[in-house]
């Protein structure tokens, strides 16, 4: 994975496969505290403690099309090489929360990449699901919720690529603004 937004694209697929209807993504850049934290939460079917304990094993997967599952192990690798780690909390029937922490200034931390693009690819491919995106930079916060967009423009809007492009630019602008203040 070249950047962290690719990990986000990848890990959110797990939430979607788990039947989630609402996915929350939080990206918290805290250069002051020298931490970068990504939290992905969902209301999918969740996992048993036994399943959670085996997640770091690349040869464990709930899928049947093939016998390996690399998503979480690769994320752990990226986090640990930059002095961070991954924590997974899950409960059957409730959902799962994956927290990945990275050392912000660590030379081995992959760049964040284009999070707004990753998010909007997920939104446009899964227009029936709701996504809440929270972006923080040194404590400043920006929120984007597809529920709001639905309310204003209707359900079809999230399937429309022109709307998606406009929303992506809006999110990018807001993220840039927070970073610069």
């Amino acid at each position: 994975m070249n950047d962290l937004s690719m990990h986000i694209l990848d890990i959110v697929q797990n939430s979607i496969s788990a039947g989630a209807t609402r996915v929350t993504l939080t990206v918290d850049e805290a250069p002051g505290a020298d931490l970068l934290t990504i939290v992905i939460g969902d209301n999918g079917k969740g996992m048993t403690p036994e399943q959670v304990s085996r997640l770091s094993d690349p040869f464990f997967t709930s899928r049947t099309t093939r016998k390996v599952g690399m998503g979480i192990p690769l994320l752990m690798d990226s986090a640990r090489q930059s002095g961070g780690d991954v924590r997974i909390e899950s409960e059957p029937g409730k959902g799962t929360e994956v927290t990945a922490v990275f050392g912000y200034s660590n030379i081995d931390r992959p760049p964040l990449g284009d999070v707004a693009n990753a998010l909007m690819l997920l939104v446009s491919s899964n227009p029936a699901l709701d996504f809440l995106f929270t972006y923080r930079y040194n404590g400043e916060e920006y929120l984007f919720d597809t529920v709001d967009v639905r309310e204003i423009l209707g359900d079809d809007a999230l399937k429309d690529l022109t709307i998606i492009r406009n929303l992506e630019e809006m999110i990018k602008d807001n993220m840039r603004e927070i970073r610069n203040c």
Partner: protein
Amino acid sequence: MSKIKSLDELRQMKARLESEMDIREKSNNPDKLVQIRVAMATCGIAAGARAVMNSIIERVEREKLPVIVTQGGCMGYCYAEPTIEVKRPGEDPVVFGHVNADKAMEIIDKYVLHGELVDGILPVNYQTIQEKI
């Protein structure tokens, strides 16, 4: 075009945005749409599926092509990622392997728009070693 900065502005520009939307027309003719599914599991993403998907979406949006673009999971073709599956209306889906942005444009120009096959099709009878044993 002016940029939208907030949801309030989105509300104000509702009418203009709706006039630009072509999704209603698409929803009315679902049987005429081509479906393109970009495999976006770990293997696909690591191999560059995001760039492929972005280039396809940009083209479909710009030219308002009768195409729906979605993400798919891993189909077991990890060796040939990025892969895209194209389903033309009334036809069997075709999977193309080793796709990059340029190849995706060739697939749109020839196969999506005109049904003309291009190189890089993964045979449907492909089996993994495990399936053969």
